[in-house]
């Protein structure tokens, strides 16, 4: 229990500090922080449509956040969520553009394609790590750029958009994850059924981590590879499996983004959501429900920044800056922990002093040496 409270305190403190940093930046360029934040949050929540947009932005972040958090829990740094998103998104888009089938089956195939593409893209660095102990940070970063260039050349070659060379054809309406009843619920925002996929993913990952033997093994390997090996757990298999699952989650993120939020895929863009996923995971203390909540928060920040920029001319990059600052403070959470415990000790000492003043001293309490 104590650990959960600790994580919450750290998360909240990091957010507060991040928002504070944002406020300072706003003031620095001569804007009013209160105004800035009001428009920022209004921009994300002011209307049903805007709420829908915030949720829609959050969908991708939930999934990339889960991807990073899951890998983290099992001892791996998945910096490659962006590349996994691209490949998953590419596969999903390809299915959307080429397959005809009744809508429910088509959507399922699209999601499956995203899942599979991301899984493969995660398996490669997983294998390199398991077999050759290649550090997954550099490996996944390389994979990001390979994915980037694959999309850059494959899309114009086979799926070129009707108007622009730099994006793919629009996917047909039947293939989009957007649905009419969600559209009418949220007044036509970007929201799509990806939200259900995301929530389902959160639940499944939570179950895997807490209640299954698979989760137990993956955590053991992640925390202490040597001890896991000693205990008879197959380390290599689990490292690969972990990256496959992480990759497939990011691949799903790609599917929900490129065939849900958007209706095509653009080339020459490295999806930021991959890196934001790291922030989401860290703020959520790498716990599935924590990821869910922090993704919603970040979705809100991203959604509202356009409105804020329109109303106050504060550059929209403030959102990214705030997010980056929040991660910095979660990384340095030790500092936050120390500050809190320092304050707690100070308070305790004051109380103790009060008690000492009131207690008569007993000279006979000398310890026997």
């Amino acid at each position, binding site marked *: 229990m104590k650990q959960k409270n600790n994580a919450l305190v750290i998360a909240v403190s990091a957010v507060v500090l991040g928002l504070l940093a944002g406020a300072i930046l706003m003031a620095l360029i001569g804007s009013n922080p209160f105004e800035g934040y009001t428009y920022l949050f209004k921009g994300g929540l002011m209307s049903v449509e805007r709420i829908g947009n915030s949720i829609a932005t959050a969908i991708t972040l939930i999934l990339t956040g889960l991807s990073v958090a899951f890998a983290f829990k099992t001892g791996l740094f998945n910096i490659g969520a962006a590349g996994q998103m691209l490949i998953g998104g590419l596969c999903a888009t390809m299915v959307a553009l080429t397959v005809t089938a009744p809508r429910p089956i088509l959507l399922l195939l699209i999601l499956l394609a995203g899942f599979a593409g991301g899984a493969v893209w995660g398996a490669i660095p997983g294998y390199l790590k398991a077999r050759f102990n290649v550090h997954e940070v550099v490996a996944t970063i390389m994979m990001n750029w390979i994915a980037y260039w694959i999309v850059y050349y494959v899309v114009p070659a086979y799926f070129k958009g009707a108007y622009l060379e730099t994006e793919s054809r629009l996917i047909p309406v039947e293939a989009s994850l957007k649905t009419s009843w969600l559209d009418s619920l949220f007044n036509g925002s970007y929201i799509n059924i990806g939200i259900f996929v995301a929530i389902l993913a959160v639940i499944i990952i939570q179950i895997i981590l807490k*209640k*299954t*033997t*698979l989760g*137990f*093994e993956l*955590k*053991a390997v992640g*925390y*202490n590879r*040597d*001890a*896991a*090996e*000693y*205990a*008879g*757990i197959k380390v290599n298999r689990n490292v690969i499996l972990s990256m496959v699952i992480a990759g497939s989650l990011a691949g799903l993120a790609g599917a929900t983004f490129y065939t849900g939020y958007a209706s095509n895929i653009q080339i020459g863009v490295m999806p930021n959501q991959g890196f934001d996923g790291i922030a989401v995971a860290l703020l959520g203390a790498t716990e599935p429900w924590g990821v869910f909540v922090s993704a919603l928060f970040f979705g809100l920040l991203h959604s509202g920044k356009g409105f804020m920029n329109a109303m106050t001319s504060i550059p929209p990059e403030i959102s990214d800056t705030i997010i980056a600052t929040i991660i910095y403070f979660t990384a340095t959470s030790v500092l936050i922990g120390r500050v809190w415990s320092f304050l707690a000790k100070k308070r305790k000492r004051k109380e103790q002093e009060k008690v000492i003043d009131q207690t008569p001293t007993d000279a006979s309490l000398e310890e026997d*040496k």
Partner: protein
Amino acid sequence: MEYVVEMLNIRKEFPGVVANDNVTLQVKPQEIHALLGENGAGKSTLMSILFGLYHADKGSVKVKGKEVNITDPNIANELGIGMVHQHFQLVHNFTVTENIIMGNEGGFVLNVKSASRKIQELSERYKLSIDPNAKIEDISVGMQQRVEILKMLYRDADVLIFDEPTAVLTPQEIHELMGIMKNLVKEGKSIILITHKLKEIKEIAERCTVIRRGKYIGTVDVANTTQQEMASMMVGREVSFKVDKDPGKPEELVLDIKNLTVLNSRKFEALKNFSINVRRGEIVGLAGVEGNGQTELVEAVTGLRDIVSGEITIHGEDITHLSRRKRNELGIAHIPEDRQKHGLVLEFTVGENLILKSYYQEPLSKHGFLNQDKIKEHTERVVEVFDVRSGQGIYSPASGLSGGNQQKAIVGREIDMDPDLLIAVQPTRGLDVGAIEYIHKRLVEQRDNGKAVLLVSLELDEIFNLSDRIVVINSGEMIDVVKTEDTNEDEVGLMMAGIKRGEGR
């Protein structure tokens, strides 16, 4: 000047523990002064304060009569204090010379040639043979220790602190070291020897200061004090060195290893045609200096390492192709050498650690889902039976347990598996006497219950105390196998150095 170094009324606290509580240590010039205490008593902390790595909360330090404030190792060096660490503080891919001059290079630009020359002179003067241009990772443990000593002499140290120097040496190398220390004293140095080995204290020290649980117990004249007396000062009660045990009644073969050859991680032969066997109802002790193939032997039996050739059978069944998990299921239990590296997942709770090998079996889990109730039942029982003490029972994170309780948890997990073969490697390393006694009792109990126990230990005392038979390993070869009652430590010491029984001394 009465004393060359004085540490008076030292107090040092860490969060949650008082490491040194009003400790006083006074060392006379040109004496070898032993600092005796159990693991965790506070000896290393005290010396780290003297050496400038820690700062005392209260108390004072005097060197040659003058009060000083030692804030970092540089100042300690300037005052003539040097330390030979228990875990060598050497950079593995630097040369001997580079390690010795580090921090004391004598200028911005390095002059390795003149430094090498100076070091060569020093090594000849103090009879510490080394090769100045060799890389640390390529030289022997004995030579590495001499490099540590030379490092101090290079800085004109007068007071040399030796922290558990004999832990990694053969009995012969220990003799050599004793000679080196006596020589250093003759050349005018004073030595503080941190150790928990009473025999060595008797052999070489003049006076001995005893610390127990951070508190100063007393200083004695070694010549006039028995090992027994020093031991009870160290532990606080009467200590029996021998374990009460009936003679063993070994039955059929459980573990049979024939002509085993195994490569180590550097592709050298760590085991060469090695053979050993263990029967039901006996404890076989494998004696040898660290790094002679014991690790690879245990890894080969438990499945952590592949073999080149040879046979390993359990109850006659060849296990060399079985996975680690299958070997666990076959009844091989393993108390590993490094409890924090291999034995436990520190981030897991005690309960989770106790099911580390069995979580996938029914009734603890079914169809891939863990059964938390059954797990709770099972692990609480183990914790109770094996007296594993922790803050929150089975929910305590393993990292919060003391070394002794961590080890008890591991022992509990392994013994509870009801194994046919129990392999215990360094089972009491770093533990206090109470925990050591407990684990020794349990091992003998297993043997009396008809289990086969293979004990691998670097402490000859432990081997002699517990084993029915002793097998000696050196450079991967089986030197000899003897019944414990038929031999003594000196003989075994020679064997550990590679000399077979009966060959010339």
